[in-house]
């Protein structure tokens, strides 16, 4: 069952982009759109959008970078671990949960490390990969998406995003405990 689901998704993922290009541009030809001219016209904005993101991403990443290398994470883990112990989250994966919204590459490294030291198919290994797979790099997405249109006041997006991350972690711990728990 899982196998069929997986291969179906893999096929769709592989074909999606070519099909997408054919349908969009093909439809354009049918509708007598000057496809090349319109494509170039649209593509022109690519540069501006990318450049607009720069200040937002610099602000975000350098703060996250400083936080990460300072070792402040260890301190936060020390403070939070009694609370996370209560909900049955092993102390080893707490840093991963904290780093996940902040840094994509950092949390990937941490997840790999956890799987190496505890075993890929161990409870902690499965939990770590589930936690990584059930969330996204909230701060990065926030900076890029809002930065691209110059949004400085992000209102309730960050709290809502962090609540989502928190419940994603809870969900990961819950389901992994039930299915692979000790």
């Amino acid at each position: 069952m899982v196998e069929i689901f997986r291969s179906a998704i893999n096929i769709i993922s592989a074909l999606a982009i070519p099909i997408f290009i054919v349908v969009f541009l093909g439809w354009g030809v049918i509708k007598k759109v000057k496809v090349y001219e319109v494509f170039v016209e649209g593509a022109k904005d690519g540069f501006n959008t990318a450049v607009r993101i720069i200040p937002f991403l610099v602000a975000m990443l350098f703060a996250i970078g400083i936080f990460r290398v300072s070792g402040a994470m260890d301190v936060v883990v020390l403070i939070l671990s009694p609370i996370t112990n209560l909900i049955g989250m092993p102390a080893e994966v707490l840093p991963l949960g904290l780093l996940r919204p902040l840094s994509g590459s950092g949390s990937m490294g941490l997840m790999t490390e956890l799987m190496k030291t505890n075993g890929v198919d161990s409870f902690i290994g499965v939990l770590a990969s589930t936690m990584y797979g059930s969330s996204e790099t909230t701060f990065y997405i926030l900076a890029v998406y809002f930065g691209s249109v110059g949004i400085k006041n992000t209102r309730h997006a960050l709290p809502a995003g962090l609540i989502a991350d928190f419940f994603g972690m809870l969900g990961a711990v819950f389901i992994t405990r039930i299915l692979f728990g000790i």
Partner: protein
Amino acid sequence: MLNYVWISLLMIGIFTAVGRDINDEVTNTYRNGVPVTAQFETTKQRTSVRPAYDGEIIFPSAAFDQFYNISSTQSQQTEIRQTAILTTLSSGKQKLEIPITDATPSFWKEMAKAAGGKDKLEAEIISFDQGKKEIIFTMERVSFVKIKAVTKAAIEFSDTAVTISLSLIGVMALWLGIMKVGEAAGLLEILTKLMTPITRRLFPDVPSNHPAVAAMIMNIAANMFGLNNAATPMGLKAMEELNKINPKAGTATNAMCTFLVINTSGLTLIPATVIAIRAGLGSADPGIIIGTSIFGAACATTAGLISVKILQRLPRYKKELLVEDKDAEVKNG
């Protein structure tokens, strides 16, 4: 809130770094100026051309860990063997040069990084007894490790940010071009109409025939199938469209926040990266986490959507949408 989180990340980071460096200095974590004894085994004698001994310094692991007060043994071997070059300076003093290799104890690797990002460590030799092969030396001074790392990180990460942004140019241009053709051909309109029943509920403020809807739908679909290269440009296109109906430039609308939360909760049907890493580490069943990840991401998405809808009703956030109240708004962040 972002203002406070941002400044907290910076301040906590910098103050922790300073605190740890002071602590390192007080407890002398890096054993600055403390002589250490080890065995030195010569592998290559000195010649008249090259007045240096090549060799290996040998420590019992336990002695190394005890010297640096490391609680957990970092190496599996009982012995640390580290290549080193012993040179005699013109002043008559002897110097030990320790190149950093893969076999170097991680504590020394860290020290080398702190000593200025060099690929070697230096030590001053106090005595060297060739007959007994015994060497006594003091390692070079290492201090302010964390605060140096913070300085380096600030510069490096700013650089990374620019690299990431610029690397988006290509895919952005590609997808924006294709989307523009779809728009001109009326394809986005058709897609928008199809999805209206769902999007009307999620984004009540967005007119149901607005092009933003199509872009958002395509972004969410691309995310689900793990097409990251396509998802970001479509997401940014959606943001651009949403911003066209934003009454107050620079402030996020309810629809933008909802859309962002859907993205940050990362609902993916196949977490391809994780599966690849698991397979690489020799997992018996790399795909075992597909179901659990979908469950976790579904929890995140549900919680995110509920909280975004509740939070947008709070007077605090509602007030920020008002166009007149400009000055008060800037302070609120």
